[in-house]
């Protein structure tokens, strides 16, 4: 799926939190969004998922403004934060309901789940627990699986590596790469971890105070290094 952003501005209490004149994401790209806290990463993902209203500007998915048609939702999977989990469902019920909204049967969901067995590490399903009773890391896993299990053409994940143990971080990195290769899905992943992003993404966007200040392909090692240096310089 192709995504484009035109003259997008989002304000809170008259201060601009996001200002993107133009951004294009080609079909099948795996893009990493990096930036310090408050850079606007989550706001951008929430705007793309049409969860908040832009002050001005437009976001198009497959050349259709997202506010005009909701067709894109059937091809988009997302997990932005814990607030998107339905706490009183078990993970199995949640996956099934999530699948149902995309027109996927519970049987199909059950068939797809083994792909995530390693990632779940025996702690997510068949635990006789509701989502709200899982640990923060396992809630994160449930949210990521729900977003990925529907095999979306556009996948949006906000800080997917947060709260995960090192093994799970590696597993999810490999899963994302594999899915991107196999299905050709467009993926937007935000993270503070520049190394993980550089490992899996084909392009990195650096946001700072709501503006894109760098947009580089990961094939250009020098430019990736520039992004890493950007954070180092800010830390000094």
């Amino acid at each position, binding site marked *: 799926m192709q995504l484009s952003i035109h003259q997008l501005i989002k304000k809170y*209490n008259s201060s601009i939190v996001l200002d993107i004149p133009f951004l294009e994401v080609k079909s099948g790209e795996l893009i990493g969004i990096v930036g310090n806290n408050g850079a606007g990463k989550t706001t951008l993902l*929430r705007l793309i998922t049409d969860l*908040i209203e832009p002050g001005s500007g437009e976001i198009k998915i497959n050349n259709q403004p997202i506010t005009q048609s*909701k067709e894109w939702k059937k091809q988009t999977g997302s997990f932005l934060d814990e607030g998107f*989990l*339905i706490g009183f469902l078990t993970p199995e*019920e949640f996956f099934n309901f999530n699948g149902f*909204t995309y027109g996927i049967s519970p049987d199909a969901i059950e068939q797809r789940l083994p792909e995530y067995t390693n990632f779940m590490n025996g702690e997510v399903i068949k635990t006789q627990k*509701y989502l709200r009773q899982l640990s923060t890391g396992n809630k994160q896993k449930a949210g990521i699986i729900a977003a990925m299990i529907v095999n979306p053409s556009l996948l949006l994940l906000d800080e997917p590596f947060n709260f995960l143990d090192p093994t799970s971080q590696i597993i999810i990195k490999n899963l994302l790469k594999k899915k991107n290769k196999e299905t050709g899905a467009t993926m937007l992943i935000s993270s503070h971890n520049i190394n993980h992003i550089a490992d899996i993404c084909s392009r990195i966007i650096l946001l700072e105070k709501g503006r894109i200040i760098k947009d580089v392909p990961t094939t250009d090692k020098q430019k990736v290094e520039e992004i890493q240096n950007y954070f180092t310089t800010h830390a000094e």
Partner: protein
Amino acid sequence: MLFKLIDHTWKMFRRSEYFGRSMFAIVLIIFITFFIISQLVLVGRMLPGLLQENFPQKSPAEWVYGFLLIIMLADLGFRIGFQKLPSKQIAPYLHLPVKHSLLSIYQIIRSWIHPFNIYLLFFFWPFIKLTINPAHSSQVAGLVGIAMLMAINQGLVMALKNLRFNKKSIPFYATAVILCAVLLIFFFPINWAALGLSLFLAMVNIKPTAFISLTLLIILSHVWAYFQIKYKLHYTLDQDGNSLADNGLSGWERILASIPVFGPYWVLEWQLVTRNKRSKINFWIMIPIALALAFFVGIRPPTEPETFIVIIFMIAGGYGNLHFQYALSWESHFFDFLATRNIDMKKFIQAKFNFYLAYSFLQLLIVLPILFWFNVDLAILFTGLFFYSTGFGYFFYLRIGILNPSRIDANGSASFNMEGITGARFLQIFVMLMSIFPFMIIGLIVPYPHLTSILFAITGVLFIITQNLWTRYLAAKLESRKYTNLNLYREK
């Protein structure tokens, strides 16, 4: 899809954390529910007789049905203030391919499942049974009519609570609405009593025009609510960004912080109380309640002030009397922080004690002149109970609070929130109430003017002036209990 969502409503109810809570909380919820229902039924049954006896110039039916529209207006105001709508519970569905129109309908259906949509029926049903003659009119139609009026209010409250406007303009809109209402009443005087009565008569006489009008109004209010909800679905999440707090301390907080010794603790206490929904609600209404009590008791014919002793006792201790019933539970969500910092627990407890003492003293200063004006005996009793409640009472609650590991969210829902309610807590309030009776008995046995009040005051003042001693004792107890409480907080 709608059925799936409705099924989620059932699951959410059945799997609610209340069911995992203590048996006492469940029994208490059931008891309170039955108590409220029985009270409403009782009022409905007794009111006709009472009205007939005290105001024989008009029939009870004329009185109550004449007030029908006012009752409904009050119901609407009550709903606007207290009825919680499930807008936040829709958030997890927003990113899924579920139509917003469907979510709006679901939200309307969910909003309907609320006790506010039935409570008036428990009053009206016995009242209608006693005041409407089934030989000439339909009692059921009367009740259906009342239910329809409540349905209009339900639609209106959903629409009004989902209106999208800047919070800063609320005073402007409120003033405009009040002005319009005053102008309307002034230029187009309406006989509300006659209108309410005619409406009710039309309902019990099953006049089609009445029911058609009510049905239309229900549809209109719900359609309005539907569009408001649909329009606001985006805004549900937008509010997260808009609720940015101002940076730094306010002017008042800076003044508090500058007070030596207790300043920083008082700022923390102030922020804890005023920035959290549950702790905030009683903080602002306690002084108005005390004022209302002063007027209510004051304007009554002279009686023994002891008649009201339990009510006075509950109010004389001010906001602290309510707050300390959950002593040290308010901090449960950040107790790890407190426990790992270099905080002098004695100072922490003492600051807490003096903060609420000062606030209650302010309440005393405001209420006392009114009480003195109306009834000197009452003013003396109030003062005695102020000292007892803030001295011994605060000590008692703090001491129990140290043993109390219940975890409550200070920012949780302010009304109908059973979090932190346990049998032990109920018992502690009961013991506290019982503790005043020995003083009253001494006052009855020994014929000395105001002895009860004097004894209350002496006991209280003793605790206030010896606070250095007992706060040290409480701090030591808290330190030794810290690990147990922290473990229990985590488990919960």
